[in-house]
Structure formats: C-alpha cells, structure tokens
C-alpha cells in the first residue's frame, strides 16, 4: 500500500512540478481587469457581440474597443455589471431591432439558385445574381436566419425574413451577413426621423400619404389579427390614428394599385378599425420613450401640428410644452370639425394619450398677451415650434356682408366647438365647395334648418370636398347649386333677407388647372334666405406675432418656412401645418410636423438639418397592374362601413360612421396587394420593375 501511495503521489508531485516550471516559463500576465470582465460575461461564446467568444470580448472591452454593453446575449444586467467593473456610468441604450426593407419575396421570381444547389445568399450573390434583376431585393435563402445567434429570424412562406422583436437583441449579425443589405438595425429614433427616400421600397399608398405611414405594414398586421402591432406601426408616423381614421381624405386610396382592377382597399377605415381597437380595449398601446434629457421646447398651438411635434419630441426625450389659446387642446380638430364626424370624447382620449407621455399643456394662453417669443426663451425653452393653424375666414367682398345672418363658416364651427349657441334660420345658403362648406351645411341641417343649399361657382367635378362628404350631404337632403356665385346680399333693417347669385359657365383653365368660372350676363337670381355662411377659404391669423419676432410672412399671409424642414427665417423657431401650407388636411399637418420635429431634434443636437434632396417630393401615378405580374389575392368587394340612417342623424350630432366590424376589417385587409417595389422578373416577363414603384 505504501508503494502504491508513494508511486501515485510521486507521479502527482512530478506533474505538479512540471506544470509549475511550465507556468513560470510560459507565464502570461493576465490583466486582472480582463479576467474580472470575463468572469462577468456569460461564457456562452455565442458570437452575437461580433467577437470570437467571451474571452475575446473581455479583451476588447478592457482595451476600449467594445462598449460595456457589447454583450447582447446576457442582457442589460451584465452590461451594468461590466460598467461597474470599468467604473463608468450606466446610461440608457435605445433598443434596436432588425428590420427587413424588402417586402417582395422570391416566390414571385424564377429561382436559379435552387436548381443550382446554392442555399446561401452570399454564395448566390457570388454566382452573379442568377435570374434576379433587382439590385436590392431579398434572395430569400435565409442566411440571416441561419446566422442569427438568438433564433429571432425565420424565413416565412413569402420567402422573406420575419423578425421576432422579443428575441431580437439588435446584435447586428444579420445585417453583417446579408449580402444585399436589405436587413438593417432600426431604433425608435431612426424610425421617427425616417422619411421616404428615393431609394426606399415603398408602396404607392405609402408614397402618397403625407404622413408616410407604413400602410402595407399595418394592413398586413390587421389581416393577421395583430391589432396592437397595427396600432404601433401607425403611431410610428401618425400620433392621431383615431382622428385620421375618421377625417382623413385618404389620398392613399387614390393611389391604391387595387383600384386599377376594381375598388381600392378601404385603407382609412382599416386604420380606424385598428385605432378603435385600442380605444375599445381601454388600454393605451404606448410607443417607446427615450429617457428625458430635460431640454425644453415650446409649442405654440395645440392643433394636429402642435400635438404631433409634442408627441415626437417627447418620444425623443425632450420636454415639450404646448401653449394653446383656446380652453382645450385640439385646434381645428375640436373647433373646426363637427361632432358627428369627430366626437369630442374620442378626440379627448387621443389627446390624453399624448399628454400622458409627458407633454405639458398650458391652455388659455394667448401669444402676445400671456407670453411672447422672448418670454419663452427667457423661460428656458431652447426651441420654439409655431403651429397656429388657419382660423380666419376669407370674406366674400360683397355688398351686405355685415348684415345680421351672414357669418364666416369657421366662426360658426368654432362657436359650435366652444359650445356657444349657434341658431340658424330655416333657409340657409352655404357659399363654397370645400370640406368646411360641407361641414357647415351638414351642421346647419342638424341644427334644424329646413332648406340648406350649397352654392359653388364651379361644377361638381371641380368641387374640392371629399366625395363621401358630398354624398352624405345629399343623403341628408342638402341642395347643391353648382356653377353659381353670390353677387349681392340683400337686407332689411340690418338683417339678411335675400341673396342674389349669378349663373356661371366654365372658361379656360386657371393657374390651379381648373377651368375658370365666368359669369353669364343677365342670369342673376334672387332667393330668400335667413342665413348665408361663407366658407370660401381660410388663412392664418398671424396678428399674434409681435412686430419684432423676425418671422417672415408670405404674401398669402402664411408663415414663411421651409416646407421640407419646417425652418422659419429665425434660427431655433420652426413652423408647420396650415399656418405654413395654407388650409390643408390633418394628415398633411401631421406629416409636416414630424419633419419639423426632426429639424428641432437635429437643431438641438447641433447638427445640420440635412439634405433631404433624396426624399420623395412627389409620387408619380401608379400605372401598372400588379395582378398581371404575380398571383394576387382576389379583388373581392370593398368593405362598407356601417353608418346611422338619415332619420337617426336628424337633429343629432351623434357620430355618423360606426366603424368596420372585425371580420370586415380583416377581409378588407386581405384584399391588399402588399405591393412595394417589384424586384424580380419572371422568365419571359418583359416588364421593367421600376415602373411599379410608387416613385
């Protein structure tokens, strides 16, 4: 027993001595810092950080070549531990996820690579591209999915990568391996600051939408029943989905490629369905907010532009304060759009959602009276956004305009919004052909007017109001008198009694491209009226701008600002919305305001506001039918929204449109072609791809 013990013990001793000598000879000075960091790392060697294992990552962190939070597999706790070891402060890192740009899968193309036996995107690219004609499209062989260390990517039935945001750590491995650069890391800030650029793959609807909402994205989400995702996609570029779902004139639908083969997709009502889903769930679907940086921005005007700027700035970490002249926020949404189109409680809920993000609002604050631009600067506001909207009505320049019973359309709608009494007589004539005119007419009908006539100087075809508004007005019994213009207002004892109008005929096209109406001599007619409401145009009331503000004003009495950047003539002061463009749509104000928010962010970061020359300026017409190229979903019939009957609407301001049912919304969403850029060419198809882009 002694011999065995001595033998094995001796062998052990010899080994220990040998190792001891070797350790002396081959001694490596291990940096204790590296060692400590390595011990803090998970030791899984996943490679997601871009280094060959945790030991390599530890060396990189200790030498400053990688940040403390480089470990994407271990989560923020490990980042915090390493930061503590390094003695650096832990700060917020905006989460990123991978997003594929391409929306057109290889199932639409001949696949050379499959029969060549190539199953890797990088190898396929090396084979000179095969049958593909697109420079930017996804090859669909799924190298990104194979490379993802966290299993966050799968290749769907459409041969496109699908990312699971809950698994994606933003490590960027997919971005590194993709040979076509169609997959990119994207943060909330990136998406807020992103505007459609010429090189982007965007569907015609998205290219046309002034707010640039990812319309195919949210429609797809609704079609698949992912309603919360749909709401988040909409809120990326539009903070007022409930409002827009009700009042947007949806130019996107005019560009919808489905419309070339039948009825366009009912895009706006699908948006309203998603927005109503959030409302009815009672749960706010909140977007990501960056931590507050404490920098204050003043926003003058609490309408759609001001609310949008506030929404994006608070998401970017700023502290926005809205100064509103009226007792409540909403601007023309509240004081210009009647209750039956946009109920106030819905508007309140939408605005409350923005305020809950951390936006301060000071109502009953009139510029020039309660504060000035200088007082805002003195209060510590580092940038100012001006978005007062268009609140003043153009007058008719007619004799008798000051008679009792004649009033501007906006004044009447504002009085309604302020819940002031707004009595109207039995016979009312509305002058104008826009949405405001229709709003006034339909409001008067609800207020009990027996005969409401809309007088418009051009033909029905030239009428700028939304078709649906004109149709609904007709259902409600409005009279339309086209090609007629008022010439004189006749009164008695200071009170309106009659209106004289003249018949018009269309002449040569004017600067707007519409045929100029020319009066027919001797065709004057006099009708008895109780009220004449003029809705012939609006302009911003800029009297509040104090003389020395330095803000330049255009000859149309709008604020002189760059419509792409929102920059005014004074550095640090930005503007957007109707006060810059003239009276336009809510969605246009939202689009302009997001651009202004971007400019404010860049300005406060000390950066140039950028060269947007590669942004889409004007989308071209869609002229190709997608169904001729690929198998597309069946056209189906366009979903119709339920609405109140005409008898239910009389004397009532209850909302007329009732929204789509879930099954209708999903069926309607499934009509969407999901068109983007057509990247591929099937054998024998001579169609070029670029023509299909919404450029």
């Amino acid at each position, binding site marked *: 027993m002694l*011999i*065995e013990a001595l*033998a*094995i013990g001796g*062998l*052990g001793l010899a*080994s*220990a001595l*040998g*190792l001891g000598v*070797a*350790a002396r000879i*081959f*001694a*490596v000075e291990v940096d204790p810092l590296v060692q400590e960091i390595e011990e803090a790392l998970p*030791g899984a*060697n996943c490679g997601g950080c871009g280094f*060959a*294992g*945790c*030991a*390599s990552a530890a*060396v990189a962190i200790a030498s400053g070549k990688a940040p403390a939070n480089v470990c994407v597999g271990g989560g923020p706790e490990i980042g915090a531990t390493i930061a503590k070891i390094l003695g650096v402060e832990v700060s917020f890192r905006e989460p990123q996820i991978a997003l594929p740009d391409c929306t057109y899968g290889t199932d639409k193309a001949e696949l050379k690579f499959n029969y060549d036996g190539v*199953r*890797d995107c990088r190898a396929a690219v090396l084979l000179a591209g095969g049958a593909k004609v697109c420079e930017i499209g996804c090859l669909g*062989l799924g190298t990104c999915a*194979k490379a993802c260390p966290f299993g966050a990517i799968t290749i769907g039935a459409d041969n496109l990568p699908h990312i699971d945001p809950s698994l994606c750590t933003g490590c960027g491995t997919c971005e590194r391996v993709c040979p076509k650069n169609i997959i990119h890391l994207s943060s909330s800030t990136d998406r807020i600051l992103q505007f459609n650029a010429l090189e982007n793959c965007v569907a015609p609807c998205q290219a046309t939408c002034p707010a640039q909402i990812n319309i195919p994205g949210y429609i797809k989400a609704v079609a698949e029943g992912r309603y919360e995702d749909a709401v988040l996609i909409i809120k990326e570029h539009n903070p007022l989905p409930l409002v827009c779902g009700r009042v947007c004139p949806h130019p996107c639908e005019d560009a919808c490629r489905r419309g070339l083969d039948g009825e366009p997709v009912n895009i706006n009502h699908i948006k309203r369905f998603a927005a109503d889903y959030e409302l009815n769930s009672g749960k706010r679907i909140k977007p990501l907010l960056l931590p507050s940086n404490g920098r204050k921005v003043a926003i003058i005007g609490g309408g759609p532009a001001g609310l949008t700027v506030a929404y994006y700035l608070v998401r970017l970490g700023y502290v926005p304060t809205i100064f509103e002249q009226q007792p409540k926020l909403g601007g023309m949404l509240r004081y210009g759009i009647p209750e039956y189109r946009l109920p106030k409680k819905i508007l309140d809920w939408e605005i409350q959602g923005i305020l809950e993000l951390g936006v301060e609002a000071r109502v009953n604050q009139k510029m020039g009276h309660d504060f000035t631009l200088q007082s805002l600067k003195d209060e510590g506001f580092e940038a100012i956004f001006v978005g007062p909207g268009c609140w003043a009505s153009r007058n008719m320049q007619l004799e008798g305009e000051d008679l009792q019973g004649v009033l501007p359309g906006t004044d009447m709608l504002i009085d309604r919004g302020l819940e002031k009494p707004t009595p109207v007589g039995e016979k009312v004539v509305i002058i104008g052909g826009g949405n405001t005119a229709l709003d006034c007419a339909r409001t008067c009908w609800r207020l009990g007017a027996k005969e409401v006539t809309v007088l418009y100087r051009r033909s029905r075809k030239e009428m700028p109001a939304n078709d649906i508004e004109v149709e609904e007005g007709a259902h409600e019994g409005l009279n339309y008198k086209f090609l007629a213009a008022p010439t004189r207002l006749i009164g008695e004892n200071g009170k309106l009694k009659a209106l004289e109008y003249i018949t018009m005929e269309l002449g040569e096209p004017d600067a707007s491209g519409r045929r100029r109406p020319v009066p027919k001599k001797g065709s004057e007619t006099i009708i008895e009226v109780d009220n004449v409401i003029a809705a012939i145009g609006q302009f911003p009331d800029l009297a509040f701008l104090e003389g020395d503000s330095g803000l330049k004003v255009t000859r149309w009495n709008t604020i002189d600002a760059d419509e792409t950047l929102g920059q005014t003539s004074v550095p640090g002061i930005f503007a957007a919305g109707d006060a810059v463009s003239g009276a336009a749509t809510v969605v246009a104000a939202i689009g302009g305001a997001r651009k202004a928010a971007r400019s404010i962010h860049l300005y406060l970061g000390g950066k140039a506001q950028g060269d947007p020359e590669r942004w889409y300026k004007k989308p071209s017409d869609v002229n190709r039918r997608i169904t001729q190229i690929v198998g597309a979903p069946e056209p189906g019939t366009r979903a119709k929204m339920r609405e109140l009957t005409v008898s239910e609407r009389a004397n009532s301001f209850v909302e007329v449109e009732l929204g789509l049912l879930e099954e209708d919304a999903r069926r309607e969403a499934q009509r969407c072609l999901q068109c983007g850029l057509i990247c591929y060419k099937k054998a024998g198809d001579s169609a070029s791809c670029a023509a299909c882009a919404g450029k």
Partner: protein
Amino acid sequence: MSFGDYLLFIVGAILVNNILLAKFLGNCPFLGVSKRMDTATGMSMAVIFVTTLAGMITWVVQYYMLVPLEIEYLQTIAFILVIAALVQLVEIIMQKTMPALYRALGIFLPLITTNCAVLGVAIINIGEEYDFVDTLVFSFSSAVGYSLALILFAGIRERFAMAPIPKVFEGTAIGLVTAGFLALAFSGFGGLVGH
C-alpha cells in the same frame, strides 16, 4: 518493422482502426467542437500534441514505474493523472503562444482532459505491447485519425447550416446520424491492412 510495415501500421491507425469511428472513443468533443471548422482544427492540433505526448509518457510510466513496482492495476488512475497534467501544460503553452486560438477554444480546451480517446490510445499502446517507437507512431497516427474524423465532420456540419433539415433532427440529432454514416463510410477501409 520495415518502412512498409510502418506505413500499413499508420494507415491502419488512421483509417481502419480509427480511434473515433471504429472504437468510438472521444465522442464528446467530437460532437461538441465540430460545429465550426476553425475550432475543430484547433482542437485537432491540441489532441495530436496531447495524445502523442501522453502515449510516450504513459508508456514510460507503465514500463518504468508501474511494472517494476508491480502496480499495473493502478494504470488507469496513473494515466489519467498524467493526461490531466498534460492538458494543463498544453493550456499554459497555448495561452502564451497562440492567444487567439486559446481564446477561441475557450471552454472547449479543458474538454481534452475528459477526452477518453487520449486515455484509450495510451491503454491500447500497453495492451498491444507496442515498444516505444511503435507507441510513438501509433499515438500520433491515432490522433491524426481522430483529427481527420473531426475535421471531416466539422466540414459536414458547417453545411448543415445551409441544409433544409427537419426541425426534429436539428442539432445533435442530425450530428449523431451523420456520425453514424461517417463511421459506416470508414468501415469501408476494413481489410485494407492486415489487422
């Protein structure tokens, strides 16, 4: 033995009696380190070094310590002690001379300690009553055979990433199936040499 005999001896050790695919020793690192070619290559180099050295030293320990002291029954424990010390030695040397490979191998390096192929070769050397030169050649050849199998297997497994493998077979499952096919392929070398 003549040169020809040695050649057959080497071929036999590498292909016919492959320590991994014919004797099924060292399967753990075979499956664990064969997902990437670079780590498989590094592991192979480490195994060749350790096995050759272990074969020689265990032969010396056997014939100059265990046999004279008549304690051959302690062969396994003595050999494990020697191999463990050798692995530590390799780790120390590699950290100094090949830091990149050392870092890349990471947790796989200590796996060699538990690599039964190394112990298996050492015990076969004694069991077959090889002399010192035969031991040297056999140990080296067996390790080369191990490396060959490992590198071939890593080459195949790298292609798994691009292959449409059914979900249930992904990972170790398809690895084991493939290892079986590889062993079957190597059995085709049977009869190439005399034993």
